[in-house]
């Protein structure tokens, strides 16, 4: 394992920087995504680009990669002023990028996917051995003829990385690469990246995970609200110090007062199996758990391990569950649709805010009607009671401090955090006995996240049962009473949060529940 000793930004005599950005600005309708951003990257450096969701990191790297065009500012590549007009040109220069949401094609093979990222791919027959060879050199083993939709998330990321490495990049951009990986997979990725940096490749590493950055990176640039707010050596900063730079202020964290009084079981799932909800999705197999009134049960796991299947089985959107596999408030809910389950006291917050939890083109009032129509009495003989609907939406906006245009504003015009507060508020104000909530703070700013966590804790204290499905382990450790791990469609046993070791959860997330040590030998 190689860690560079010098701090490269002071590294006089290291020659020219690989990449220099000065004064990069980019405006989108309604927001200034990048505002005069400066950044310098040295050869062999692993440089963190740190910031919350919406800080402008993704926009910046898309500009570097030629996907977006800056409105203003300059770029030097190896000392030469350059404009990058397309990803094609970026690759010609030696810039490779691994996207946060993979730019892979599910129905194509690994080799075809790699070929699409190369400008001169040659024949498939030549490409296959090269894919294998590059994969072996960097610990990224892949079978070129497998179709991508059969691959695990970690394997898919390997395809992306191999695709970049095939063209000997001088700069590799990684956009939140570990957000979909288990801790063990992430450690393996770090080995690969250190090895690449050791060979002189620069790496721009985008993340909001502080510990990871402190362990991996030589330099860090911190962004907030589209601007660079700090440049530092992350190894010399504490995690708390980095967090303060990233968030800009100390924010209130959700507080919980102990002594949870558990009531009767509100949600009882027994032997639930279901086929995948979407093509290429993950089926779930023989899942059993209970959530009691007054507690929050957290379901951890890397995305794509059956969460969507479990969630759609619980919401009733796909009611294929065998009889009695799902009981809500003591009633058999297996054969019921979403409407009937809501009558039994279930409220549901889906993963996708826009397009699942809300209709972007409709007003907040209409979106309040979307799930509140029955429990809030917003209908009369098939007609909509518009006054009552507006009042209900108004109560949500006020109780949850939803900022942005009032109840007549379109849901799609709200920021992610405000829309999420609205959706959670809409479900909470209906006084559910049971709340199933998926990834409630994904892509939400820290202030809104804290407010959402507090609201969930308050709801549990008032005696509701909450099932919290999240990829964010920190979130689960912070507010869940018990945690179980969903991996490969199977659910582990439940652990009390206060007693569980994070290492154990990490192993379960990687599907290695029985192993004591991660197998590190393969990564070298």
């Amino acid at each position, binding site marked *: 394992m190689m860690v560079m000793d010098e701090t490269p930004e002071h590294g006089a005599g290291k020659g020219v920087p690989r990449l220099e950005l000065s004064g990069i600005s980019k405006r989108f*309708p*309604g927001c200034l995504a990048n505002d005069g951003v400066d950044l310098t990257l040295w050869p062999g450096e692993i440089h963190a680009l740190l910031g919350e969701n919406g800080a402008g990191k993704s926009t910046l790297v898309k500009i570097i990669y*030629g996907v977006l*065009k800056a409105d203003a500012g300059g770029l030097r590549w190896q000392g030469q002023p350059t*404009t990058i*007009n*397309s990803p*094609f*040109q970026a690759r010609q220069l030696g810039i490779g990028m691994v996207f946060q949401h993979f730019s892979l094609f599910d129905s194509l093979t690994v080799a075809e996917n790699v070929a699409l990222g190369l400008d001169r791919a040659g024949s498939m027959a030549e490409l296959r051995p090269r894919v294998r060879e590059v994969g072996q050199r960097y610990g990224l083993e892949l079978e070129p003829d497998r179709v991508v939709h059969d691959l695990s998330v970690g394997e898919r990321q390997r395809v992306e990385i191999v695709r970049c490495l095939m063209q000997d990049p001088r700069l590799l951009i990684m956009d939140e690469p570990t957000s979909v990986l288990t801790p063990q997979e992430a450690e393996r990725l770090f080995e690969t990246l250190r090895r690449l940096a050791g060979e002189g490749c620069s790496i721009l590493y985008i993340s909001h995970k502080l510990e990871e950055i402190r362990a991996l990176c030589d330099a860090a640039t911190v962004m907030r609200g589209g601007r660079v707010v700090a440049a530092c050596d992350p190894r010399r900063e504490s995690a708390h110090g980095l967090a303060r730079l990233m968030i800009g202020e100390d924010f209130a964290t959700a507080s919980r007062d102990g002594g949870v009084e558990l009531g009767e079981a509100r949600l009882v799932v027994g032997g639930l199996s279901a086929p995948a909800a979407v093509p290429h999705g993950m089926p779930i197999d023989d899942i059993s758990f209970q959530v009691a009134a007054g507690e929050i049960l957290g379901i951890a796991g890397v995305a794509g391990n059956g969460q969507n299947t479990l969630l759609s089985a619980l*919401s*009733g*959107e796909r009611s294929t569950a065998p009889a009695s596999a799902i009981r809500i408030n003591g009633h058999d809910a297996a054969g019921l*649709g*979403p*409407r*009937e389950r*809501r009558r039994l006291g279930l409220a*549901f917050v*889906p993963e*996708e805010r826009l*397009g*699942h*939890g*809300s*209709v*972007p*083109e*409709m007003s907040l009032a*209409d979106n309040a*009607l*979307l*799930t509140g*129509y029955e429990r809030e009495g917003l*209908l009369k003989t*098939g*007609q*909509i009671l518009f006054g009552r609907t507006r009042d209900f939406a108004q109560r949500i906006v006020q109780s949850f401090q939803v900022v942005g245009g009032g109840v007549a504003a*379109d849901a*799609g*015009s709200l920021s992610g955090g405000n829309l999420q507060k609205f959706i959670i508020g809409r479900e909470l104000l209906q006084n559910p006995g049971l709340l199933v909530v998926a990834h409630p703070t994904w892509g939400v700013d820290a202030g809104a996240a804290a407010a959402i966590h507090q609201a969930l804790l308050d709801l549990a204290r008032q005696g509701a049962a909450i099932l919290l499905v999240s990829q964010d382990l920190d979130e689960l450790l912070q507010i869940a009473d018990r945690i179980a791990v969903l991996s490969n469609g199977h659910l582990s046993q439940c652990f009390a949060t206060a007693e569980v070791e994070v290492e154990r959860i990490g192993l379960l997330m990687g599907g290695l529940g029985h192993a004591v040590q991660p197998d590190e030998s393969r990564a070298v």
Partner: protein
Amino acid sequence: MRFRLEARERPSRSLVYGTPVLAVALTMACGSVLFAALGHNPLAVLHAFFIQPIDSLYGLAELTVKATPLVLCAVGLALGFRANIWNIGAEGQLTLGAIAGGGLALWAGDDAGPWLLWAMMAAGLLGGGLWAAIPAYLKTRFNANEILTSLMLTYVAILLLSYLVHGPWKDPDGYSFPQTRMFADGGMLPVLLSGTRLHLGAPIALLAALAGWFVMSRMFIGFQIKVVGLTPAAAGFAGFSVRRLTWITLLAGGAMAGLAGLFEVAGPIGQLLPSISPGYGFTAIIVAFLGRLHPLGILIAGLFIALSYLGGETVQITLGLPLAVSGVFQGMLLFFLLAADVLVRYRPRWTTTTTAGAAVAGEAD
């Protein structure tokens, strides 16, 4: 300089209603060029097309007669289009409505009481509805694309009508013309304005549009239709049954088209013929879009498109242009409308590219 589209923060509400006007203007401009190319004075053609047909009371009544089936079909289709149910077989449903209602009139003979007309209307609704029930069943049960099934059924319906009027229902005293007997008076829609062909169907179409408006803007079922169309996943999450809405919108659309067909044969035509509609069911698709899928907009659009039919007939008679001019006009209008609609959600921008933008010009626009 190059052209690009920039997403608006929110759709422009004023342009939603402005683009149909823009589309009409562009169509007229393009039409003028077309007529000039064909060697006619564009102004004379436009006058003959848009003014001459309605410069008399009789002309205005004819406009209403033509608009009636268009509005009825389009209001029904719009319900489905709002929910992303693409029933394009209204022509077939219209034909089946005419067959069902007309068949009843032929069966009842000359001595039927005043109940006959109402029974015919019910039969028309039922016939169109049943014809639309087939795509509804095939879609909800087998996931078969309703665009293709409803269209194929249109060909089947037209062939069925052709078979009936050539075969079993042919008028024995009709000198072997392919047509049925004329309906008895009790099976004919009363004329509302003597000296014209304005019939009872027109006010019923108006009522249908008002009812459509009430359903879409005041009723929960209309809200559900809108949600399914905009965001199917959110509809599933809210517990709205897509299957149920598919049935409702297809049945409603089919029934209204069937009623339109019945009005044609019990109104202006008075018997069953091999061809009872100049494509009203297809043209209603244009009417629905031009009216912004809004029942009241459809009323206006229906009158305008009806004018394009009358105009086509007028220019055929006075200038010797083919009837197909109406279709060209209607197609162009829909093109321009769809093209102009981009302005509702996007803002056109002409940007001067300071950098070498050629490499991405192709993909960015």
